[in-house]
């Protein structure tokens, strides 16, 4: 009995270790997505804040005399900022540690603005200021500046305290800025990019599935001399990296007048060797007697293909569709080359986002909102069709 319980405990420890490992890795994979998801809901002052916070915060406000005023916490009390005052930090030249803070408006340069008296500190010439300390005017040098604020209590505006604005703590609460998504679509014609991407993706998926079914059937079921050699050559094109085709394919698009057109994103990509391969492999596995019965009944090849093979092949077709969906939705290098930067009407999402990243560097919250839009669709499809995604990866591995 002792042995059994021992192995049970060991197993439990192993399982905890397993989840720890998986969880740590999952955190690495998931954390950037959380940053994006929450970042896309932040307002711009929040996203530039240091240290960064994960959740989207914005400052609470209170209405005073019909105006919204931001709330701060000063010494445990909620207050609003009435006005800010520029404050200088001054010290006598012979005792640089003895600083005082005085509003810069109350201080004048000794000797006037033109002939300011100076003193040399650490080899640098510094102007001297007349600073009043305890009713006495002392000559001092400026060591720095800061911003002070007059903060009033919410219920009694005459109850005012001074505090450093930079160190004042804001009263924040979680407030997702959903209008970021609307703003980003206006920023870069992203709504048009989205429909273009959807159109291109659907056409590429549909076209590839259609040609792959036809080609897959020919290579799987119609025996003719030279078929296998032809198939091998066709499949060999998978091994050729796309970069080699960029220049000549671009020339072809120029010759056809398809540069800058969605046509250039669709038609070159609906003839896909990988798709033909995938469908062929599935068709080969379908038992022959199924179709022989139909052929005896006088069915043509066309009928056999659409009435028998296609209905049986939904898993393979779904796998191919998800693969092509991802490929078309995420393809970047070709649209980037063939659709010019200024042609907003024919942009696809990847190109728009890249440009947005280059231009709107001052509003990362909007860029992240664009990213969320771009990944929302593939992630949704992934959640719905996870089985086929994974199957797709598995089949490409077996190849």
């Amino acid at each position, binding site marked *: 009995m002792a042995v059994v319980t021992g192995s049970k405990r060991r197993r439990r420890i192993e399982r905890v270790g*397993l989840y720890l490992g*998986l969880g740590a*890795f999952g955190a*690495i*994979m*998931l954390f*950037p997505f959380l940053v*994006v998801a929450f970042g896309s809901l932040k307002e711009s002052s929040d996203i*530039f*804040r240091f240290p960064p916070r994960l959740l989207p915060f914005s400052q609470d406000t209170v209405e005073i005399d019909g105006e919204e005023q931001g709330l701060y916490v000063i010494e445990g009390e909620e207050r609003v900022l009435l006005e800010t005052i520029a404050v200088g930090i001054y010290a006598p030249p012979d005792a640089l540690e003895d600083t005082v803070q005085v509003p810069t408006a109350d201080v004048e340069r000794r000797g006037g603005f033109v002939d300011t008296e100076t003193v040399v500190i650490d080899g640098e010439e510094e102007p001297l200021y007349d600073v009043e300390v305890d009713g006495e005017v002392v000559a001092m040098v400026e060591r720095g500046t800061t911003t002070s604020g007059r903060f009033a209590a919410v219920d009694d505006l005459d109850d005012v305290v001074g505090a450093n604005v930079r160190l004042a703590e804001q009263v924040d609460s979680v407030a997702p800025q959903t209008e970021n998504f609307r703003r980003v679509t206006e920023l870069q014609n992203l709504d*048009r990019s989205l*429909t273009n991407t*959807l*159109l291109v993706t659907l056409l590429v998926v549909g076209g590839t599935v259609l*040609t*792959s079914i036809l080609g897959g*059937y*020919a290579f799987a079921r*119609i*025996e003719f001399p030279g078929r296998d050699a032809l198939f091998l050559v066709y499949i060999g*094109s998978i091994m050729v*990296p*796309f*970069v*080699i*085709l*960029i*220049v*000549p*394919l*671009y020339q*072809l698009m120029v*010759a*056809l007048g398809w540069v800058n057109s*969605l*046509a250039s994103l*669709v*038609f*070159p990509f609906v*003839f896909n060797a990988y798709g033909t391969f995938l469908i062929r492999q599935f068709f080969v596995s379908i038992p022959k007697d199924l179709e022989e019965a139909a052929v005896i009944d006088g069915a043509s*090849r066309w009928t056999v*293909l659409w*009435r028998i093979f296609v209905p049986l092949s939904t898993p393979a077709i779904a796998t191919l569709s998800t693969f092509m969906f991802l490929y078309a939705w*995420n393809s*970047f*290098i070709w649209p*980037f*080359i063939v659709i010019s930067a200024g042609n907003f*009407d024919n942009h696809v*999402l990847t190109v728009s*986002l*890249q440009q947005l*990243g280059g231009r709107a560097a001052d509003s990362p919250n909007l*860029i992240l909102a664009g990213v969320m839009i771009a990944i929302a669709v*593939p992630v949704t499809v992934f959640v719905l069709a*996870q089985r086929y*995604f994974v199957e797709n990866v*598995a089949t490409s*591995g077996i*190849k």
Partner: protein
Amino acid sequence: MTTLSLPRMRPPRLLSASAWLQALLGWRVLHTLAVGAGLWWSLTSAALEGPGRIAAVAAASVVLLLDLGAVAGLAMRRSFGRSLSLAADYLTFVGAILVLFQRNDVFRGLDALGATFVRGVPFGVVAILAWVVTGWGEQRGTLTQVRRIARYVAYAAVAGLLLAVGLLPGLATFLARTATPEGLLLLVVAVVSGYLAWRTFQSDVAEQLEVSNQTTRTLDGLLFASPNLLGFAAFFAGPLIFSLFVSLTEWDAFGDAEFIGLANYTQILALNVGIASAGQSASEVLAPGYFEWFSVGNVVVGAQDVLFWRSIRNIVVFTLFALPLSTIPALFLATLLNSKAPGIKVFRAIYFVPSIAGVVAVALIWRQLFDSTIGWLNYLISLTVSGLNNLPGVAITDPRIQWLSDADIALFSLVIVFSWMFIGYNAVLFLAGLQGVDNTLYEAAMLDGANRWQRFRNITLPALRPTTFFVVASTGILTLQLFGENVVLFPTTTPIGAGPQNSTLTPVVYLYEQGFRRFAFGYASAVAWVLFVLIFFFTLVQFRRQREQAEG
């Protein structure tokens, strides 16, 4: 399942099979003459130039050869005459339709569809739902009434979709554009050759010529494969050959291509090594036309195209780091995932997500994390550092890494982005391999007392060899073509994507710069072929290694 209604309306059979063959021979002769004239025109016309002329001449020659063979075959009443005739008519049919569409801007019409497409989406959703209901009813075999209604709803939704996206105005434009002499001629050619091909394809014509079963099968097979084969020729094989030709020319966007042999390749690849003695600068020891690429001690290596060699150096360094980082952790992750513990599929899904998010989105995500002042990465490093500094005897300064603007770091930032994106994907690949490993091997090894590491080393790794080859080769092909991450993370450098001081200049970034910023198409093509050879050798080496290991 859907019942795909086949075209029931068959064209009329105007003539009996034997009379048809006579008529076909006459038509073939006419067709041959027309195609011959077309070939002559495409050889001499000033309207065509460059690749357009080559393509036209090639197409006309192919059809002319088919025609000549068909005339001979039909005259001798041999079956190959029918086959060749079919091929010629089919190609004429497809060609005429494509030219008509291209001329009427049907393909470019997709751009207009991009604007109206959104109006059709609700109809599309309804159509899909109705289609699902039809299929669902079919499986149950009951509820025929519901199925019938659903089918009508689906038809109506498809019609609504077509109307909503502007089918009618599009059709009107198409007809208006066709109603010109040229358009009508193309339409007539398409209809006539389409009918001819269909009629010749019928079995009574085949019987007249005693066509063998094998020939029928060949024709069937080629017909079914023809979309793929034509697309392959037009968008793969043709451009590939053309690219090889372009790489032997000096060609910019505005002038004619000038044949210069291998000059592009020699300029790209030329290296020169010199030994610098004391006080000599690098340029003094190199042959004229060469610039310093790098130097080791007093040995100076120079290249004519320093930027290209810089890109090679970068991509080799990148691959050396990114390849192990995105495969080795993936293998261990896969061994973790290969368990029956509950919830494992959730983890698998999470790991997979970065690879489906797409290069641009992933790079933008990481740009946010990499920000040197407000980014999370530096913040977490700061936290760790200050946490460590609380320990006695530890004093680390916060590195404040400039992830994207430090020339020594930028390439490694790309390594992080790439590895993060593909670890999960590779893990799922490895997992598929692991699940194929025979479990009895492990059981036997456990009986022999092999520990976990020994089992991994002696069973898992050898069994995974084909998967490992596939993972390493496909990841390597991706790393060697690195481009998107660069362009998104360094959109403002020149060349675009080259990063600080060209530290992330990769071959594809360089190719883009040469081809599409400087419009040196010949030179860019040559760069592409050099890169292709590099990728090919990489794959070959992996393949050989896998085979040797499998044999040894």
